Structures are given as C-alpha cells and as structure tokens.
C-alpha cells in the first residue's frame, strides 16, 4: 500500500474547480513542485485556502499569475499586487480572515469541532454576517470550520509510510491543512525509511497522508 507517486500523477487527481488548501507563509514552506505542476497542467477555477498569496512568481503567487484561481481565502494579500489587481477587476474573489482565526478554522475542520469561538474580529468588519456568543459577559465570534478537497503539504522529511516532519518556519499551516482536507498530497524534500523519524518528532501522522511525492531538487 505505497503512497508514493509522481508529481504529475498526484496533480492529475486534482480536477478543475477543486478547493485546495496550500501550505506556506510568504512562499516559505509552500509545496513548489506541486504548484508548478498545477500551472503546467493548467488547472482552472481553483479555490485556494492559504495564509497568503506570496509575491508574483513565488509559491502560491504562481497560481495567481497564471490566472488559475477564482477564489482565495487568506489572511493577507498585500504583498501580491496581481492578487489585488484581479480582485479589483472582479475576476478573483478574496475572503480575508484573521490569521489566527484562519489557523483555528482549519484546525476545527480537521479536529471535528463545530466552530471556533474567538475574540478576534469582534466589532470589526470581520463580524459582518456572523453569529456572536456571550461567554461570561464577553462577546466572541462564532467562526465556522474550513475544509477542502485537497491539501497540498510541504514537508522537510517524510518516511515511506507518509509520516511528516517540518523545518523551522516552513511548518506554518502545513500540519493544520493535513488534517482538514479529504485528500492529502505531501511533497517532501527527503523521503527516508520508516523508523528514521523518531515517534516524538512526527508532526503529521501517516494516517492522514494519501499521496507522497518527492520535491524536485531545484524547486525549494
């Protein structure tokens, strides 16, 4: 029951119109080989859930530049003028979510929780259209879980079964999205024998990883 596949075959499984969660923070920790293959295969009308859209030509920014994305759910798009331009032109829908709320909403989906109850955004435009709840005299927003069809995860190391570990700030949203999508495709810099990652150092467990691909070496 090997999960190993090629980058091309993994991306073949993603249809036009798919809802994708993609790891990374300003390009750091994004699955760049999978992103390049999405562009090569010209997947269209994607919904992308990610922290940000990086910069033009970097990480998720490549999908924006190629006009493959119809909707973005992110905390920040300010560093990518193409995202802003497409949003203003009306060809790209952007849903802005506070970063900590985005993290918890993705986690809630992966952890089977019904909602996130957070103080962040109360009394701001983030509250618009949402329920609030009073807990002990304080008002909180009720934010709904966010799930996806696919999670594209970037790992530092994977073992043959799909256990994953991450490096430094390249971890960011990767472990969260790996729990929250129907199909999880992990791209790893190194793929090592089972048992090489000690049990206490596995961050994403193999039981949630569906496909495993090796990162192209020139594509960090």
């Amino acid at each position, binding site marked *: 029951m090997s999960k190993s596949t090629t980058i091309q075959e993994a991306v073949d499984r993603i249809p036009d119109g798919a809802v994708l969660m993609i790891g990374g923070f*300003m390009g750091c920790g994004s699955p760049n080989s999978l992103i390049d293959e999405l562009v090569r295969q010209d997947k269209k009308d994607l919904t992308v859930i990610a*922290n940000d859209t990086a910069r033009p030509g970097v990480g998720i920014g490549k999908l924006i530049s190629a006009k493959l994305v119809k909707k973005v759910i992110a905390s920040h798009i300010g560093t990518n003028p193409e995202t802003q331009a497409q*949003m203003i032109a009306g060809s790209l829908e952007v849903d802005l979510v506070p*970063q*900590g*709320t985005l993290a918890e909403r993705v986690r809630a989906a992966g952890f089977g929780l019904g909602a996130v109850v957070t103080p*962040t955004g109360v009394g701001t435009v983030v509250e618009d259209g949402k329920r609030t709840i009073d807990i002990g005299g304080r008002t909180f927003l009720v934010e709904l879980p966010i799930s996806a069809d696919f999670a594209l995860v970037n790992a530092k190391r994977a073992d043959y079964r799909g256990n994953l570990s991450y490096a*430094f700030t390249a*971890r960011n949203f990767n472990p969260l999205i790996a729990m929250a999508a129907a199909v999880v495709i992990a791209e790893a810099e190194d793929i090592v024998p089972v048992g090489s990652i000690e049990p206490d150092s596995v961050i994403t467990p193999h039981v949630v990883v569906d496909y495993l691909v090796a990162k192209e070496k020139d594509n960090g």
Partner: protein
Amino acid sequence: MDDKTLIARRVALELKDGDLVNLGIGLPTMVAQYLPVGIDVSFQSENGIVGMQALPVGATPSADLTDAGGAPIGALPGAFAFDSAMSFGLIRGGHLDVTVLGGLQVDELGQLANWMVPGKMVPGMGGAMDLVSGAKRVIVAMTHTAKGQPKILKRCTLPLTSIRSVDLIVTEMAVIRTTPEGLVLCEVAPGVTVDQVLAATQAHLIVTDDVSVMSVAA
C-alpha cells in the same frame, strides 16, 4: 536622528526583561536594534518561531527560516518553531507580553485602524487583529501625522483592527497613554512643545503637569 529611529528607540524602553514580544513589519521591526543592555527579550515571528534574530553576517540563508515578510532570518540558541495555531495560541492566549504595531489611525477610545483603506488598499489583516485582541500590551508605533493630517483622531474613519483599546502610542512627537478617561499626553519629543502636539492631533489629549521630555534607548 530620523523620526523612525526616534520612535523605535523610545519603544525599546518599554520592553522588559523576560518579555515575549511580537514586532510588526516595517518601523516596529527596528525596535529590536535598540534593546537596552541586559534586557533579555524573546522575539516572536508569527509565521512560526520564537527566538528570531537578524540573519548573522556571512550566514547562508535557509529557505525554511524566514520572518513574517518572507525575508531570511536567523535564530538564537533556545529558539523554538511551531505551527500557525500554536503561534496564535501564544498571541491570543495571553502569553505574548507586548506587540508593537504600525498604525493608520488611533482614536480617543484607543482603538486602532491599521489594516485597510477601503477602495485603495486592501492588504488583509494578517495577524494584526489577533495581535491587538490578544497581546497583554499593545504599543502603536507610528508617525504622528500623514501628509500633514492628524492620525490620532476623535473616532477612526477607517475599519478598526480591534475594539480593544491599545495601551500606548509612540510617535516622533509624543508618547500618549490610553486610559478609561481618554488619551493622556505623557511625553513630548525633544524640541517639541505640548502645543505643537495638540495642533497635530485631532483627538482630545489630556495634558497634566507631568508631561516630560521623551527619553530614548541608546
């Protein structure tokens, strides 16, 4: 010294030994350069590390270690890395002692607007809303005016970052503390008069006999 350096040096005096501190991108990042000697502060980068430092001279950048702007950084011994949920658990859960953020507007209620200008600039709030809602202490570090117009207003006209009041506003002209009674002018910059601050401020400032001259970190 220029305005930004003055502001960064003044803010640096607010940090205490043992603090966990998050510095926003831009001017706030400069604060780290002016930490008083003997003060051990841990800096969080909300993309996933505490213990960040500037990339040491001559060090090879790692693609896996960047600041929240995506630029290469280094890390000190004892640094620790974490995912985005833990990052904001530290922020929202009351573990972050201080956040220093830039501002577009602050009003008499101490409310900050710093994340969008409708119709002109919609970058997204990033971590700002969580930081202002969650940090124990929120310091706004910004220029006192923009194109000659006051940024400290009776009421913010831009969308708020949080309804929670910030704690301190540091500009190149003044240090202003928020209180339940309103904004209190605490310090004026060297060479700046109280009247000049009042003239550059739309909000009502409470002025007591205790206004002192701003001191800054070395």
